[in-house]
């Protein structure tokens, strides 16, 4: 199957090259116009802008996506069913490493995948998604996200986004300079020889057209790419599950939901399974939409006679009068029968799936002998608590004084979103007995009298805390 992915990559590479060409042409023109006929300088500027943007995107991608999102990394015991679904899809898709799972607290059903390195991928789902879909549908959504990972869509779309960004920035710069200084003609045109003049003019004219239309063209290309990759992920996802109806009915349920995903932005929208900025992914279909219309995606999936890529291609052709896969890819497409549906309902109730999120909110958990696990709420002042099931009184480990650990001043003044990468907190011990304090994520951390190390690690968010006395 990896061969198929490689084959469609040729098209992807071609598209990227095209965008790159547009960028370089604009750069060259800018150089010709404003740098005394030094087109190469303009090229250099274009490349600098490109690589800077690449660095920024590459470094900040995860942070950007999750900015403002209340999320937690799921452990197996939080939801064994969801974990199993992800593992099953990992086997079906042939991914080398199982992605981690992030659970996001958001009532809008949505999902996305991200991963810079193959061994460090993440599949994120919202709580709204998990408690609405049944097993088959959830499987379909996860398969779609795995398909994105398998097709390296994240890297591809990031590259395309950086290209687009660079083109736009460069065009802006040129526009500004034009506005301010006016295009200065080259003074050295005389010394270049007589026949060169007219050719240079034509090149300049072409360059100007690129300058004006370039950003527009690049945008159209970028969004066309985004839509095609969504169809591709749908097709591959259906093939992994051998059950296209699963994804189809999942999309249907998602489009019936009336909430928008709160933490998404225009920049991060293409990575979600449906457009997060419109309720239920119901954005108007235009040249600038990042996702194809959900109704069309459902129609294609439901029109499939089998579950292979060829079946998807046939259904796609019928619905969109267009081709999706390259001939190369379809040659190696497997015959795919559709399997029977499983009749499992939603895998978690709304309360159960939100439970892992409370882990990070500082509920101290005490286990009673009768088997009951008691969550001591924040701000609980006493030394003991009564078990509501059996009535026995449990001692709390000296949690009466809860200090908050002071955060060390952060570099940018912005709260870092990924705690394990944030600078360490500092806590000063008040004495030598039992002490407890709060991590920045809200979890209460206890220190025993015999605790002698200089660092402690918050179990929930992974933050490092320095202990001083």
């Amino acid at each position, binding site marked *: *199957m*990896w*061969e198929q992915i490689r084959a469609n990559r040729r098209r992807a590479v071609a598209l990227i090259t095209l965008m790159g060409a547009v960028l370089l042409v604009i750069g060259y023109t800018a150089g010709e116009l404003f740098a005394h006929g030094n087109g190469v300088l303009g090229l250099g500027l274009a490349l600098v802008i490109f690589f800077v943007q690449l660095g920024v995107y590459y470094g900040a991608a995860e942070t950007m996506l999750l900015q403002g999102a209340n999320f937690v990394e799921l452990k197996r015991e939080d939801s*064994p*069913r969801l974990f*199993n679904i992800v*593992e*099953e*899809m990992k*086997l*079906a*898709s*042939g991914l080398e490493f199982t992605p981690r799972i992030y659970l996001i607290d958001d009532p809008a059903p949505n999902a996305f995948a991200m991963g810079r390195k193959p061994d460090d991928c993440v599949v994120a789902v919202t709580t709204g998604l998990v408690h609405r879909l049944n097993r088959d549908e959830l499987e379909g959504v996860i398969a779609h996200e795995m398909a994105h990972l398998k097709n390296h869509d994240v890297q591809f779309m990031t590259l395309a986004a950086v290209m687009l960004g660079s083109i736009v920035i460069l065009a802006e710069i040129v526009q500004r300079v034009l506005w301010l200084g006016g295009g200065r003609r080259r003074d050295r045109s005389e010394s270049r020889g007589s026949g060169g003049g007219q050719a240079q003019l034509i090149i300049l004219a072409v360059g100007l057209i690129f300058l004006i239309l370039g950003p527009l063209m690049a945008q159209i290309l970028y969004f066309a790419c985004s839509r095609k990759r969504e169809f591709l992920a749908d097709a591959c996802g259906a093939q*992994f599950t*051998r059950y296209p109806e699963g994804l189809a009915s999942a999309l249907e349920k998602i489009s019936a939901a009336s909430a928008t995903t709160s933490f998404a932005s225009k920049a991060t929208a293409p990575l979600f399974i449906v457009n997060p900025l419109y309720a239920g992914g119901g954005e108007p279909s235009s040249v600038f939409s990042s996702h194809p219309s959900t109704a069309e995606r459902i129609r294609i999936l439901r029109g499939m006679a089998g579950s292979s890529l060829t079946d998807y291609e046939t259904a796609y052709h019928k619905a969109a009068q267009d081709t999706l896969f390259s001939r190369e890819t379809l040659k*190696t497409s*497997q015959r795919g*029968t*559709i*399997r*029977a549906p*499983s*009749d*499992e309902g939603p895998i978690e109730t709304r309360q159960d799936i939100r439970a892992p999120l409370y882990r990070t909110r500082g509920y101290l958990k005490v286990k009673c002998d009768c088997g009951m696990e008691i969550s001591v709420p924040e701000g609980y002042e006493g030394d003991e608590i009564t078990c509501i099931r059996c009535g026995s009184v449990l001692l709390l480990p000296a949690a009466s004084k809860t200090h908050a650990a002071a955060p060390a001043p952060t570099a940018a003044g912005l709260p870092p979103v990924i705690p394990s990468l944030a600078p360490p907190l500092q806590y000063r011990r008040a004495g030598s007995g039992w002490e407890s304090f709060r991590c920045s994520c809200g979890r209460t951390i206890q220190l025993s009298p015999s605790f002698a190390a200089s660092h402690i690690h918050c179990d929930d968010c992974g933050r490092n805390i320095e202990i001083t006395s």
Partner: protein
Amino acid sequence: MTLIALLPIVLIGLIVIVALWLVGVYNGLIRLRNQLENAWAQIDVQLKRRYDLIPNLVETVKGYAKHESGTFERVTQARNMAMSAKTVGDRAEAENVLTGALKSLFAVAEAYPDLKANQNFLRLQEELTSTENKIAFSRQFYNDTVMTFNTRIEVFPVNLVAGMFNFLRREFFEVKGEEQRQAPQVKF
């Protein structure tokens, strides 16, 4: 430069191109074969997981349904047979039998409401269902890879390279007349 002088350069160029192509094809075949081995190993892992889970399940059910000894025997026997199967075909058959035995065990469990509420039983049931699914998916991926591999080593001109380096056709992991999904479904 005369044509004759050009000839050795062209010849060398051709040889280089062919050599590069050979290397590319060979590497591709190696990669495919390793993917295949890996896919097979994955199936193995899941099958072993199933074998490990079954004794626990039998014990849990025995605790509530002491008189269903016939079913327990079937499951244990089927498990032993599957664990001792040698060829791919035998293994697939034995696995099919084991799946059937497990289905009847879960059907038996339906009649005992205490058992159905037991946390341990529910956990084991989910794990077994998931393991069955994983076996199905890893088998699916293995078969897909086998098909790709077999096709690749049989088309011309790659089959020449395959023949040279002894890349052999692989067998599918399939059983005649089986359904697509055999996860034991229990309705509550």
